[in-house]
């Protein structure tokens, strides 16, 4: 089976673009990714298009209506916040299977503002604030407090995640925000759902990211191996049965399952990874995933953030892009945006936030419901 390589990858600067359409936003990242490897849409044999907000709206085809109707197959993908990673993985699988030797994956989202989630609508009466809360900040607060219950993780430790990721984003011109947020500022920001303050919630933004993926033969033929990124592992997992599933959407066991399988596929361990972009949809969530991805023994996550191990310059930098907390979280685009970030470091092109000597990186996303996508990438 051939290896698959990312030869072109890019993302737009995340922001709010109410004047644009979803296909227009998606097209921008695609043109940038094509430019990154000197290709045109005529070189592409299939398009895997990830979007949530218009999941039944044939977004991939509408993108081609903007940039070139070449008649290639389009696969529209929707998988909650793992949408982008799922589109990328389907593209990867088509190369591995030998169906194509040059394909494109895109993730795009146009978001509203405000709270996501909420318990029940449907028939009867609203359950929000009656049977607890289904808002995302509350759901991830409960997931964080489960960690507190088991390991004594504190509000301050959760808040430090946000301080770190906002600091990282000051070095990333494509992030929504570039502002420092000291610990007191984070902890004293408006409380949304304890222990998540407003600065500990990801930013709803519009955005897109795209990647061109080629077979090994095609990558060599095109002379693109120099900046190519090898996909060492691509794993997707759904949530295996857990006893509290019905009331606590599970982000842990599917991450653990996907991580184990990804390390096996790559023939690597957590100790071999030089940087990680993981799903910090809320500050509480990032802490859980230090344990889940095996960056420490179970329960060691609080110490990792206290000791600075996960900051730029530390043992295993996490979310040097600024993460979803500050770069922003356009749901369907996030999974490919984090592949862009890791690839940029592996290419040594990340500027002030460059993780020095980075050779292998890992990306992780969680779609609640649940889907976990993990990719391990290596400089070719």
């Amino acid at each position, binding site marked *: 089976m051939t290896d698959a390589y990312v030869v072109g990858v890019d993302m737009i600067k995340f922001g709010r673009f109410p004047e644009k359409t979803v296909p227009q936003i998606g097209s921008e990242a695609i043109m940038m990714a094509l430019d990154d490897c000197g290709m045109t849409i005529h070189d592409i044999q299939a398009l895997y298009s990830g979007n949530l907000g218009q999941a039944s709206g044939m977004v991939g085809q509408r993108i081609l209506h903007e940039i070139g109707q070449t008649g290639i197959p389009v696969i529209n993908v929707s998988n909650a916040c793992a949408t982008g990673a799922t589109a990328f993985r389907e593209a990867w699988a088509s190369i591995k299977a030998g169906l194509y030797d040059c394909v494109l994956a895109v993730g795009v989202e146009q978001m509203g503002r405000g709270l996501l989630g909420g318990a029940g609508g449907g028939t009867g009466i609203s*359950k929000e*604030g009656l049977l607890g809360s289904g808002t995302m900040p509350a759901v991830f607060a*409960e997931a964080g*407090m489960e960690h507190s219950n088991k390991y004594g993780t504190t509000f301050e430790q959760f808040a430090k995640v946000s301080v770190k990721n906002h600091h990282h984003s000051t070095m990333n011109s494509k992030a929504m925000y570039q502002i420092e947020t000291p610990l007191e500022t984070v902890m004293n920001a408006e409380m*949304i*759902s304890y222990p*998540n303050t407003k600065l500990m919630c990801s930013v709803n933004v519009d955005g897109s990211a795209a990647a061109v993926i080629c077979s090994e033969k095609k990558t060599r033929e095109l002379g693109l191996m120099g900046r190519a990124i090898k996909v060492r592992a691509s794993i997707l997992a759904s949530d295996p049965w857990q006893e509290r599933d019905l*009331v606590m959407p599970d982000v842990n066991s599917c991450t653990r399952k996907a991580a184990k399988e990804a390390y096996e596929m790559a023939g690597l361990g957590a100790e071999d990874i030089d940087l990680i972009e993981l799903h910090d949809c809320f500050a509480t969530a990032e802490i859980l995933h230090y344990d889940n991805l095996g960056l420490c023994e179970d329960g060691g996550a609080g110490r990792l953030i206290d000791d600075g191990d996960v900051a730029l310059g530390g043992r295993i930098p996490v979310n040097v892009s600024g993460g979803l907390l500050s770069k922003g979280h356009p749901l369907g685009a996030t999974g490919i945006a984090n592949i862009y970030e890791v690839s940029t470091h592996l290419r040594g092109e990340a500027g002030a936030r460059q993780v020095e000597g980075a050779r292998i990186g890992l990306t992780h996303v969680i779609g609640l419901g649940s889907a976990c996508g993990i990719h391990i990438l290596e400089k070719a």
Partner: protein
Amino acid sequence: MSEQPLPVVDYMKIPDDGDPYLEGHKCGECDAIFLGERNICSKCGTRDRMGTIKLSTQGSLYSYAIVHRSFPGVEVPYISAVVDLDDGATLKGNLIKVDPDPEKINFGMPVEVIFADALGRKDRDGNSYLSYFFQPRA
């Protein structure tokens, strides 16, 4: 419009004579407990071995969030609580009669399930609903 309050969720049962209760579906093969009716166990895959049980009203606090920002019309702050029942099931709901202050909320604290009106909420037809809440065990 119903004379009597309606159950807030389909796994709440309100007998004509007797107290309301929450109903679980328990797998006869692996003992996994589910909320809501089903015929196949998603833990072990066994078919047609589901039996109904009356869920315990006693449990302990497993996790929580203190909700300060919710949707319009929802009174805040309140405690959204995840409670492990003594029989092995897990429920989510509002924890009442406890200050919404992390200093006052202890993991593992014993709580009980009580039944009360759904905060005055009515559906489009004007029906009232019976809901459940958690409160510290007396």
